[in-house]
């Protein structure tokens, strides 16, 4: 009787050990939060429908040209020049924004002055304004007979509207909020104690800035830069008015695509779009990796 009970217990124990070990999904960590499968599934299908399907359609469309057709469509001098204009000027504008957007964020966080709330709200205006309106305003301002364009031309011989510089100014205008809004909260949460520690250890303000403040906000600054850059590459409305749109000189990629569409060259437009997508993706990926590397250096 006793022996039977014993063996029963042993069996039950064995059986228990086997049944308890449920198959654990590959990426899933044990967690008390429910709904892992549901949320992951939803997120992936949502992203698929909203982002991946349109992009895939673009690539499929351009694939009709074939490899050599695709290559010759995106390597014409006009397209290459447009690539240079779009990516080069977006990069320059994003860099400008990274520097001056940081300054704006710094002032908004560190100093108190009358009208600070107003300035803070002003930063978001480029987000809200229809880009075409911004473009018209900027080109009116910087045109050879405009308020700023005229004195700049007369005093310095500088032409802004209808030159690459004009495009850079438009891209800077629309990209500014991205840098300010990503850097501002990080700067706000920066503990004053670290700066005080640096000061008591003998660091000058400049040294404190370079070795304490800047490393702390650099990941946010890179994010702001990337957002501003990506926005600049895709920007259409504000640029076409001030650019002058001379092929090979001040013609941006989005405009080139529109032109191709107007000429019923759908496959060519898709090819340029696909190439643009590829370059953008690689650049954003690099920026992301850069950020990850910076974050990992002081990981929790």
């Amino acid at each position: 009787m006793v022996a039977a009970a014993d063996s029963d217990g042993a069996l039950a124990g064995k059986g228990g050990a086997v049944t308890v070990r449920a198959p654990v999904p590959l990426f899933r960590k044990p967690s008390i939060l429910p709904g892992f499968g549901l949320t992951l599934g939803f997120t992936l299908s949502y992203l698929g429908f909203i982002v991946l399907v349109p992009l895939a359609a673009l690539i499929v469309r351009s694939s009709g040209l074939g490899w050599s057709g695709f290559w010759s469509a995106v390597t014409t001098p006009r397209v290459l020049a447009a690539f240079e204009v779009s990516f080069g000027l977006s990069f320059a504008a994003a860099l400008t924004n990274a520097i001056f957007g940081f300054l704006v964020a710094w002032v908004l966080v560190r100093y108190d002055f009358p009208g600070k709330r107003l300035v803070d709200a002003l930063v978001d205006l480029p987000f809200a304004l229809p880009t075409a309106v911004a473009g018209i305003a900027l080109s009116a301002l910087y045109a050879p007979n405009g308020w700023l364009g005229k004195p700049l031309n007369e005093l310095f011989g500088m032409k802004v509207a209808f030159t690459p510089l004009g495009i850079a100014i438009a891209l800077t205008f629309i990209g500014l909020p991205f840098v300010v809004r990503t850097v501002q909260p990080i700067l706000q949460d920066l503990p004053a104690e670290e700066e005080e520690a640096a000061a008591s250890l003998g660091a000058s303000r400049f040294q404190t800035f370079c070795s304490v403040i800047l490393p702390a906000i650099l990941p946010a600054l890179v994010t702001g830069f990337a957002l501003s850059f990506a926005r600049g590459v895709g920007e259409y409305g504000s640029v076409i008015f001030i650019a002058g749109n001379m092929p090979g000189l001040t013609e941006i990629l989005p405009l080139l695509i529109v032109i191709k569409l107007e000429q019923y060259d759908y496959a060519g437009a898709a090819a340029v779009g696909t190439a643009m997508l590829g370059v953008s993706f690689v650049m954003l990926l690099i920026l992301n990796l850069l950020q990850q590397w910076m974050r990992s250096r002081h990981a929790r």
Partner: protein
Amino acid sequence: MAIQVSGITKRFNDFTALDSVDLEVKSGELLALLGPSGSGKTTLLRIMAGLESPDGGSLLLNGEEALGLKPRDRQVGFVFQHYALFRHMTVFDNVAFGLKVRPRGERPGSAEIKRRVTELLELVQLSPFAGRYPAQLSGGQRQRVALARALAIEPKVLLLDEPFGALDAKVRKELRRWLRKLHDDIHITSVFVTHDQEEALELADRVVVMNQGRIEQIGTPAEVYDHPASAFVYEFLGQVNRFDCTVEGGIAHVGGGALAIPTQGGVQGPAVAYVRPHDLGVTPASAGPARISGIHVVGPDARIDIDLAGLSLEAEMDRERLATLGIAAGDRCAIHIDRARVFAR
């Protein structure tokens, strides 16, 4: 290096953080600034470091006026309550920071920096952690890194703002012993701020008790504990029974005459009496004036709640003594007071 504080006043809007404070820190001593929150102790420490500027008064570091000096020129090491380590730097780089930011002419070579940092990390027993980031360390380890970082610049004075405040009880005790030993070894003039009276009494050479922006008393731990200068100090240092009484001819009458305590000093009339729990004796007596309302055993000690004619008192004794007395909650007892301090009301 000695520190001389005289007439230092600091106001934040309507709040007076420091009200004309005078204080002398002797060269090589370990001084505690003790007080409740809002007493101005941290503000005083920050003024010494140059992180805050006072509204008036003077501060002499080694006999020289220092209020005009920037923090970086004061040769003061500051340790923050929440460590304030540089998050994106390794432990090594954190400690080396103060040496690396020196002007070109005074900056030691990189081999010399490495030697000094290694030495300091050995001193704070963190050599194996040189390559880690602060986030990978425990609280006690982080605070030791902060200390090594402050010592790296060879400061003349070490200022510590609630250095153990963010640590758990056990680590706090260990670190405080370790700091005392460190101070005995290197004898750097040190001032630390704390609201924990036990910490101040155990660690410091002298204790400065502060309240509402003023200094209540300065003295050795034994002096301030045994001879509190004011009612505030008595109440702030350690557990205490406080009750209203009337003093007539050197005898304090408590609880409607239920208890008479001999007092010293010239206090007459209405007064407040303070008795430490371990100065309150309990004897079982079936017709005694007091009743035991509860007994709590805490580790090796026992706390006894006593009700004396509506007055709640607390006595403290070790568990052995409690066992010999054989008292239990609800028993009646007699109490006698060995020592009391009386301040006029």
